[in-house]
């Protein structure tokens, strides 16, 4: 995978996509898996409905949510009251340098 250097993966959706779906889509892309085949259900990390509620209750409120799942850290927030941004950062890359074969 070309992301060993620890660059965050970023996904931007418009507000018609629920935050929980944006997060799941971002995780699937980052894990290179189908959304139905992720390592763990999102519910094991946080309540997806609570996530949506926090972010969408008042879109004009600046809220960002950061949580860990599998080996990554996910941050999700609403940008400009128009888009949902999801950033996925691989935590395993933080501890050491990537190895080159």
């Amino acid at each position, binding site marked *: 995978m070309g992301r060993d250097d620890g660059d965050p993966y970023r996904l931007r959706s418009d507000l018609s996509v629920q935050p929980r*779906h944006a997060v799941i889509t971002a995780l699937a892309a980052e894990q290179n898996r189908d*959304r139905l085949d992720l390592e763990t259900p*999102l*519910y094991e990390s946080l309540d997806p*409905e609570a996530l949506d509620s926090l972010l969408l209750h008042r879109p004009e409120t600046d809220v960002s949510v950061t949580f860990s799942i599998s080996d990554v850290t996910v941050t999700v927030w609403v940008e400009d009251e128009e888009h949902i941004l999801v950033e996925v950062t691989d935590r395993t890359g933080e501890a050491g340098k990537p190895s080159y074969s």
Partner: protein
Amino acid sequence: MSDAESDGENVEQNQRGASQAALLCSDGGSDLNRFFEALADNRRRRILIHLQQNDTVSLQDLAGVLADQEGIDHQSEAFKRLQVDLVHLHLPKLADYGLLAFDERTNIVSSESLPTAVEQILGLVADLEDTDGSIDSNKES
């Protein structure tokens, strides 16, 4: 609550089944809150109603049933999102509350014996609610 009373309560919970214990062993006094949260979604209510009539159902078949109720094309992104919601939200949440069992290896959903109150409310919901969650005020009880 004294130890004697709580022991009696625990024995009674074991006799009523693990599903009720899971629903009732919550953070003191908020049983009804958890119960309403579990049911506070139209799809979750219809999942439980389906399981009242079917002991087990595969994830795929359950998704198909729900999609057909909502008029969702099985090839659409909306269908995919429905499946995603089952796997990542509704099934783990309902299992957490002891209202069904979901085996992630086999993708089989199984019914659990439900508290009487849940059965009654589901019966009421089935009569009154349309598939999109709107209450059909024209229906007679």
